């Protein structure tokens, strides 16, 4: 039995595309809170003789996603039948992609403790969503409105090694698909859904590669970022205990119970994995033409990670500031409107921090009004020699707090800053005052 382990995690993220109509028919794709079974036609009901015709917009949205993550685009791609028998599938199969998906490979850059890490992808494929089921006692109530809504699945390689990395990745995917305008990716409404494959590999020796374990546990029902993190951490600990008891965890599908924060075996056998994929004879192979690919390449905006790096390089932002600014759509929009007025790094950093940390200072304002107020405030700001004198005065008066600080109670700096602001009627530049305080406190009194 290995003495230490490294978690090996792969993620499957599903998101519904923001199209007007369904994937293979012209019924409305808007199913949220609609009366049950009102967006249906013979195709999405799986009636005999109905023929599926693929939605061009959905294909292009999927290809746009593939381009954004640098995946290889299969110019000729296929839809296949994934066979399984369940009440959420009226046809007995789901139309999906298997051997020739729209996108293969590619990588998604995430930020982990300030470093960019590329999460390698296996594939990006397009399929149809299934019906929504409600379980009432011994009955299953079926609403087929969701059946046939275009659904993209992005599958990673087993390259993630912590719950934190998995969470950062999922957040990045949500940010990206909203950025590209292809999905609302709303986990509460079910338009983004997640599954994680988790196993533990023996910790490899220095410089050696991780040897993938010959089992994996799939965890379903992860419908919030918090649950992803909790379920993965729970699974890591559970599997560790199984290994430590001298056994290997079994390959299985587990559900996540958010109330108890645990995963539980759904007792499905591995045979259920036998989906018997084969090309759908109703849908001949499709082609993405050069014209379409070129059009999509032109549509591709600057990507979130590119914009983060741009602000880091242009204005010297640290990674947290650029990440928060880029991740918050409203703040980012306001910031972009101010950028033309910004003259230097110092201004840029002050304004970006203010926008990120104090939304009440700009929300509901026009950029011009905010700018004017900010400039006035800056001109009244107390800094330089005047501020240094006041800081010196505070340090002289507050002997107890100063002594506490020097004994290691660094939190009292907040109190000392408050004293500086009191003496300056709140006009001291907070960053400068903090710097001055820290400098003076570091010197031996």
């Amino acid at each position, binding site marked *: 039995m290995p003495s230490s382990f490294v978690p090996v995690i792969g993620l499957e993220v599903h998101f519904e595309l923001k*199209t*007007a*109509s369904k994937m293979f028919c*012209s*019924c*409305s*794709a808007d199913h949220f809170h609609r*009366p*049950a*079974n*009102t*967006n*249906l*036609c*013979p195709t999405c*009901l799986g009636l005999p003789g109905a023929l599926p*015709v*693929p*939605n*061009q*917009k*959905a*294909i292009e949205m999927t290809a746009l996603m593939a381009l954004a993550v640098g995946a290889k685009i299969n110019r*000729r791609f296929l839809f296949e039948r994934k*066979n*399984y*028998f*369940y*009440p*959420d599938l009226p046809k007995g199969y789901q139309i999906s992609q298997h051997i020739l998906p729209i996108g293969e490979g590619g990588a998604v850059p995430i930020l982990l403790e300030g470093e960019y890490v590329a999460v390698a992808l296996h594939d990006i494929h397009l399929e149809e969503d299934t019906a929504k089921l*409600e*379980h009432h006692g*011994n*009955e*299953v*109530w*079926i*609403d*087929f409105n969701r059946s046939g809504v275009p659904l993209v699945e992005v599958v990673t390689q087993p390259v993630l090694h912590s719950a934190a990395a998995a969470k950062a990745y999922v957040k990045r995917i949500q940010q990206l698909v909203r950025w590209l305008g292809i999905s609302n990716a709303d986990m509460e409404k079910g338009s983004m859904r997640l599954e994680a494959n988790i196993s533990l590999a023996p910790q490899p020796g220095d410089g050696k590669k991780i040897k993938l374990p010959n089992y994996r546990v799939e965890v379903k029902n992860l419908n919030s970022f918090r649950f992803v993190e909790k379920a993965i951490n729970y699974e890591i600990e559970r599997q560790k205990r199984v290994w430590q008891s001298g056994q290997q965890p079994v390959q299985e599908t587990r559900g996540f119970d958010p109330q108890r924060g645990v995963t539980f075996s*759904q*007792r*499905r*056998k591995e*045979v*259920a994995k*036998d989906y*018997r994929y*084969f*090309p759908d*004879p*109703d*849908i*001949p*192979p*499709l*082609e993405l033409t050069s014209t379409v690919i070129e059009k999509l390449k032109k549509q591709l905006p600057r990507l979130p990670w590119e914009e983060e790096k741009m602000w880091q390089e242009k204005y010297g932002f640290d990674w947290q500031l650029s990440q928060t600014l880029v991740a918050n759509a409203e703040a980012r929009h306001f910031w972009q409107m101010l950028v033309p007025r910004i003259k230097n790094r110092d201004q840029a950093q002050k304004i970006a921090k203010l926008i990120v940390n104090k939304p009440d200072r700009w929300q509901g304002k026009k950029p011009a009004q905010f700018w004017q107020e900010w400039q006035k405030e800056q001109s009244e700001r107390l800094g330089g020699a005047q501020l240094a004198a006041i800081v010196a005065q505070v340090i002289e008066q507050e002997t107890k707090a100063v002594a506490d600080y020097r004994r290691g109670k660094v939190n009292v700096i907040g109190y000392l800053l408050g004293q500086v602001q009191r003496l300056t009627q709140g006009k001291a530049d907070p960053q400068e005052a903090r710097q001055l305080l820290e400098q003076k406190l570091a010197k031996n009194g």
Partner: protein
Amino acid sequence: MKKGDLDIKYLAQLAQIHLEAEEEKQLAKDLQDILHFIAIIRRVDTKGVEPTFQVARKTQMSRLDRKEKSLPREAALQNAPQQKNGYFISKPIGWK
């Protein structure tokens, strides 16, 4: 079980159907015959021939993303063996 042998119980489970012993025997024989037939076809030399799984056309036409009117709910539900409050009703199924 040898490779290539049929596990009829396993197939029945995937299809969610119940088979009596007699039916199992008959179906196993029928499926074995089909496999035998396919084994003969596989002897044909198909080197350089692309797989054919449809004959309609070389590539598919797609459609524009336009929504159209759906069926009235009563029509959608009219063939349901069981329905309630506008839902299709089914028995629960053990696994997916």
